């Protein structure tokens, strides 16, 4: 292990260092589970510039067993060999990778900036003293070393001081800034292996997709927040095409999904439904039930709680309008007995505020103690996490993770944990406390579709674009009508005779 002082690092850094002597199986286990880790690196040296990083690596390379006493007393510079590594000398760490039988390469990773190949090679040359004897191999070498040059990033992950302007022109005052940090080490495990798995799980390869299928990475992160394991029973009350449930299945969980919409559950045909996605990845079939989540209590046992994890993307009216059971009409007619099984029960719009309140209530009932609810909710910039998120007395807010989608719109991943048993007698109180700011908060989630349209209308050029779209639609309609008339050959199109 090595020590590197953290006081020079900005608070927003995608790089974390740890004083740890982990073995490889642990790292492999972590990487297989964590979707957002790019790589795990055995750190050989670090500094605030590439030059000082190279110095630090050089010092590390010079220590060997008989110098161990010196190393233990050494506390100058920004590097010291840690006694945590026990009796492992730096020589023993480096030597195996310098033999001529091992191929190698150095990857240069420049955060937030683009460097030419020549510039990258100049950086590599500062580490030439390491003298790896084996051949350089670009594809799958035995050892991959990495030089990371870190700069200050904003909270969206872009450089605060970009090296190039839009026109690829070098911004000299930014170019003159020193980096924030530089790290050099050997890659122990890469998210790359996972990424090739992700390719497999990617939406492009799925047999069955819908307009709201969540991207694989996001839903896998959700399963981590929900702590879904192979011992879990996982539930998605708005299962749709099953993309989130599939990620639960990939973690080995047994999966249950419900949805009110039979068309989504049934899919497009024999080869394309929620099950074909599970089959594609050789997972046991999930249970699918057609039911309305606002009436969960009508169909499922109230005690004891069932689910270790509820992971879902509730319908919030942007692309998939939410529906619930019940008639739009005030007076409802009963369906005659003989028609009951064929009757497609009417549904009515399901306000987002009710969607969320019902979701929290179902979670409070159906989660085991300590079980987690993870959901995504869209919001615009007026959303205040501290006051606008829905609440439930049985659930504690654990995390929120915000992902900006555009300047106005973002997506929030919310994690809640069950901390109290559900008391049926308190149901009214639970529901009354869901929105502490009352209807106002619910409105912020509820009318996003309309608000996005309103916001789009304010943008310049909206009228022209809208007129173009109207014209296109009219032309398509005309063309279809014409084609139909020609097909029918009735000749009742306007005669010019």
């Amino acid at each position, binding site marked *: 292990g090595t020590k590197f002082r953290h006081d020079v690092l900005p608070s927003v850094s995608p790089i974390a260092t740890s004083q740890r002597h982990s073995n490889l199986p642990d790292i492999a286990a972590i990487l297989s589970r964590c979707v957002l880790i790019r790589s795990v690196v055995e750190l050989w040296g670090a500094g605030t510039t590439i030059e000082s990083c190279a110095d630090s690596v050089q010092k590390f390379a010079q220590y060997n067993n008989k110098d161990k006493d010196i190393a233990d007393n050494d506390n100058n510079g920004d590097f010291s060999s840690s006694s945590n590594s026990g009796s492992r000398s730096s020589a023993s760490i480096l030597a195996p990778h310098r033999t001529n039988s091992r191929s190698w390469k150095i990857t240069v990773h420049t955060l937030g900036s683009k460097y030419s190949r020549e510039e990258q090679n100049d950086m590599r040359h500062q580490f030439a003293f390491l003298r790896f004897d084996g051949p350089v191999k670009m594809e799958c070498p035995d050892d991959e070393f990495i030089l990371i040059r870190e700069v200050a990033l904003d909270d969206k992950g872009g450089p605060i001081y970009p090296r190039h302007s839009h026109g690829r022109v070098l911004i000299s005052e930014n170019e003159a800034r020193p980096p924030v940090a530089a790290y050099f080490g050997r890659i122990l495990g890469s998210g790359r292996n996972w990424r090739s798995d992700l390719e497999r799980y990617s939406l492009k390869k799925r047999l069955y997709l819908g307009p709201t299928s969540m991207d694989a990475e996001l839903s896998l992160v959700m399963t981590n927040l929900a702590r879904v394991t192979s*011992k879990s*029973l996982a539930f998605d009350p708005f299962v749709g095409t099953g993309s989130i449930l599939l990620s639960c299945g990939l973690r080995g969980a047994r999966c249950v999904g419900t949805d009110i919409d*039979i068309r989504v*559950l049934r899919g497009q045909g024999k080869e394309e439904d929620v099950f074909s996605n599970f089959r594609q990845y050789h997972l046991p079939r999930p249970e699918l039930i057609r039911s309305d989540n606002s*009436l969960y209590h*009508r169909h*499922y046992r109230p005690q004891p709680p069932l689910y270790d994890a509820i992971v879902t993307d509730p319908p919030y009216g942007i692309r998939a309008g939410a529906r619930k059971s019940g008639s739009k009409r005030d007076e409802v007619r009963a369906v005659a007995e003989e028609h009951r099984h064929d009757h497609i029960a*009417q549904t009515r719009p399901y306000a987002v505020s009710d969607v969320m309140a019902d979701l929290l209530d179902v979670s409070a009932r159906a989660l085991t103690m300590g079980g987690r609810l993870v959901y995504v909710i869209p919001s615009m910039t007026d959303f205040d996490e501290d006051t606008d998120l829905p609440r439930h007395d049985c659930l504690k807010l654990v995390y929120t993770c915000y992902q900006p989608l555009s300047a106005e719109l973002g997506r929030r991943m919310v994690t809640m944990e069950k901390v109290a048993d559900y008391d049926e007698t308190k149901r009214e109180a639970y529901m009354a406390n869901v929105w502490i700011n009352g209807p106002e908060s619910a409105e912020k989630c509820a009318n996003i579709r309309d608000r996005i349209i309103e916001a789009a209308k304010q943008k310049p050029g909206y009228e022209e674009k809208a007129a173009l779209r109207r014209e296109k639609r009219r032309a398509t309609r005309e063309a279809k009508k014409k084609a139909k008339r020609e097909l029918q050959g009735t000749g009742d199109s306007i005669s010019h005779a």
Partner: protein
Amino acid sequence: HYLSHPVPTMRLLTHNTLRNNSAEADGKGFPLKITCTEIRVDNDGTGEGSTADDEAREVAFVKGILGILDWPTLVQGASQMGLKTLPPMLTEELAADPQFLRALYHVLMNVHLVRGMLTCPVTGREFPVTNGIVNFVLEEDECENVRY
């Protein structure tokens, strides 16, 4: 098995949790009576693809859910699906026996109702199972607000 077209299904574990909680049923709307038109039984795991790891996982899973099973409902449901060998009571001895647990896993997870009907024992309300999907969507006139 998983490679052929997987007909969607309802398992006994799911059946164990289902209720008809309408006002009329008055809290007694279970176990739902199972009428089977088409059943599918998966290979019980001793066939291709099953490893010692898989078996250990199955036992661990069953152990984890033993506490939430309604045993009489399971016995009745299994019997209606053609499996009449479950003991009338779950004893501590049985709960500790890995062989029994593996057999229980099979009953809970590998026996599927593809087509059939679930009927409320009190009101007679029928919930059809088509292509393995239970349809609980209620008619407009059934959507009264009753909780149990």
